[in-house]
């Protein structure tokens, strides 16, 4: 177990004027035993950041520390961290047992200890009956668990997860999410979990790093990120459907952006007059899409509530206490 720290971490590919910078100075501290999710759209540099921690990518600038020690030039194997890959990267020709034991054999543990550790991990992940199988004989969910087992069995100082759930179907993904939470509670190992799925991020994270275009937009608990987004990007990225970001509505200043979540818009007898364009029933709730001049609005109703018909004109109004204000030039939150 270990704390993790990023100090002005940069990543550039190539050199000279042709270089492309993909990470622009990230600074963050992750406490010992914390579960941190790195979330952002594809291409935002989140996987690159994770791979730099693992030692699979060189750090162009700044420092990465594990337990207070700078590891920029330390070999991946010597960093004592384990990684779960998106496609699991199991050794296809080895049995489940051998897959988990391989790293331990290289570290020259005794046969006895390897057997004990692998069996204990297999019990934890309910893989006992599969130990003699090859990866090809396993289902996607089982492979995923073997990949986690391979990480756990090493008893590393930190776990790195690179979108480990994205190859599972929706139901299994939800199950595995719960399992990962349980595992983290019982093992308490510092974990860095990369995903582009905000539901995964919200449900798993103790704290989350929201990244965009190689920059850290916000680092905070899921509550903070959802309730008090630090920038327009975070506001628009987290939440489904996304927050309404209004530039051109009555009462919005020309240098500001007004953010209102769909659940914080109310149908009222006064306020903005908007036309109902379409309706979507999602089960427990109903989404109402409205047009307000050049802006589009989304409003969330409980499915039991009365709703307006398409084509009619209604008055809507934001819940003032839940509105967010952003600076139009910088995109940053205005208190």
């Amino acid at each position: 177990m270990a704390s993790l720290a990023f100090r002005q971490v940069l990543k550039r590919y190539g050199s000279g004027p042709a270089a492309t910078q993909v990470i622009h100075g990230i600074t963050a501290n992750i406490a010992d035993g914390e579960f941190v999710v790195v979330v952002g759209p594809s291409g935002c540099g989140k996987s690159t950041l994770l791979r730099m921690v693992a030692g699979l990518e060189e750090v162009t600038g700044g420092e990465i520390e594990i337990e207070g020690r700078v590891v920029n030039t330390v070999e991946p194997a010597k960093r004592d961290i384990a990684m779960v890959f998106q496609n699991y990267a199991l050794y296809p020709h080895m049995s489940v047992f051998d897959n988990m034991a391989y790293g331990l054999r290289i570290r020259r543990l005794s046969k006895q200890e390897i057997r004990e550790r692998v069996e204990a991990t297999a019990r934890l992940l309910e893989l006992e009956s599969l130990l003699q199988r090859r990866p090809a004989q396993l289902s996607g969910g089982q492979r995923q668990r073997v990949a986690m087992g391979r990480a756990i069995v090493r008893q590393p100082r930190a776990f790195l997860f690179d979108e480990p759930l994205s190859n599972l179907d929706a139901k299994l993904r939800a199950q595995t999410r719960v399992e990962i939470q349980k595992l983290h509670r019982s093992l308490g190992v510092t974990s860095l979990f990369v995903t582009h799925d905000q539901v995964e991020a919200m449900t798993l994270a103790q704290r989350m790093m929201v990244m965009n275009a190689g920059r850290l937009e916000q680092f905070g608990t899921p509550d903070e990120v959802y309730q008090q987004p630090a920038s327009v990007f975070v506001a628009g990225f987290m939440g489904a459907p996304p927050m309404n970001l209004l530039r051109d509505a009555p009462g919005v200043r020309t240098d500001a952006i007004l953010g209102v979540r769909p659940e914080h818009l109310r149908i009222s007898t006064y306020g903005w007059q908007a036309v109902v364009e379409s309706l979507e029933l999602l089960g427990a709730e109903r989404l109402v899409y409205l047009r307000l001049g050049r802006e589009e609005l989304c409003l969330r109703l409980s499915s039991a509530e009365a709703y307006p018909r398409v084509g009619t004109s209604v008055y809507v109004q934001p819940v003032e206490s839940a509105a967010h204000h952003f600076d139009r030039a910088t995109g940053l939150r205005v208190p």
Partner: protein
Amino acid sequence: MTSAPRAFVPGHLLAHAVLWVGLAITAFPLYLTFIASTLTSQELAQAPMPMWPGEQAWENYRKVLIEGMSGSHLSPPVWVMLRNSLAMALIIAAGKIIVSVLSAYAVVFFRFPGRMLCFWMIFITLMLPVEVRILPTYKVVTDLGLVNSFTGLTLPLIASATATLLFRQYFLTLPDELVEAGKLDGAGPLRFFLDVVLPLTRTQIAALFVILFVYGWNQYLWPLLIITDNKLDTIVVGLSKMIGSGGDATTNWHLVMATAVLALLPPVLVVILMQKWFVRGLVESEK
């Protein structure tokens, strides 16, 4: 009649006819070779020659295997030549596989200056078969004093990395994550090669072994040039020397045919025994 038996479909009939003709064209000479190897030279000299096996099979095969060609001082017994050929084919196949698999591993998994240059230089050797570079190679081998040795016989044939390309293409299909998982598990390059890459390449190696064994076995021009000591003759060269080189310049065709049948057997056996691996290696990639 609602449905005709499948054999009567005209298209099938034609296809079968073509296949039978092809089979006959391929198999008939082999059959003749075998028949000739079981006859005496008098029987063989009749016109037309008999179409059924004679009674000399045991005698002919025993004679060529153990004594060699009668009246000839040029040919060693066939078992010696078979042994030479077997050794040559095995060394060439094994050597080529070792060289190619290692060079492909280097080219695919390591980033070093001149990597692509190395790859292209290896690639270019594909365009230079033994026959093209035979004179300079002969000069080099002679200068090194390797004439009449197994080293001289096999080394120049090993040193063309024909299989490198095949292994490279296969290695490129291995996911990067596998390499990275190995790095995180603490496997060094050699360890990763032995524990992961090599086991995953088994079927490809087996398939290639079949091809290269037959390639080595069938070498003719190079052994003919480099080997002047009869005791080191390979079977393919030895076979050709038997023709027209009997004691009184006649050819003992029945013995030549027996030798030909013996020369055919090892490559055929290798192909048959390794057929399962061969096909798997060419069609399946186990990942």
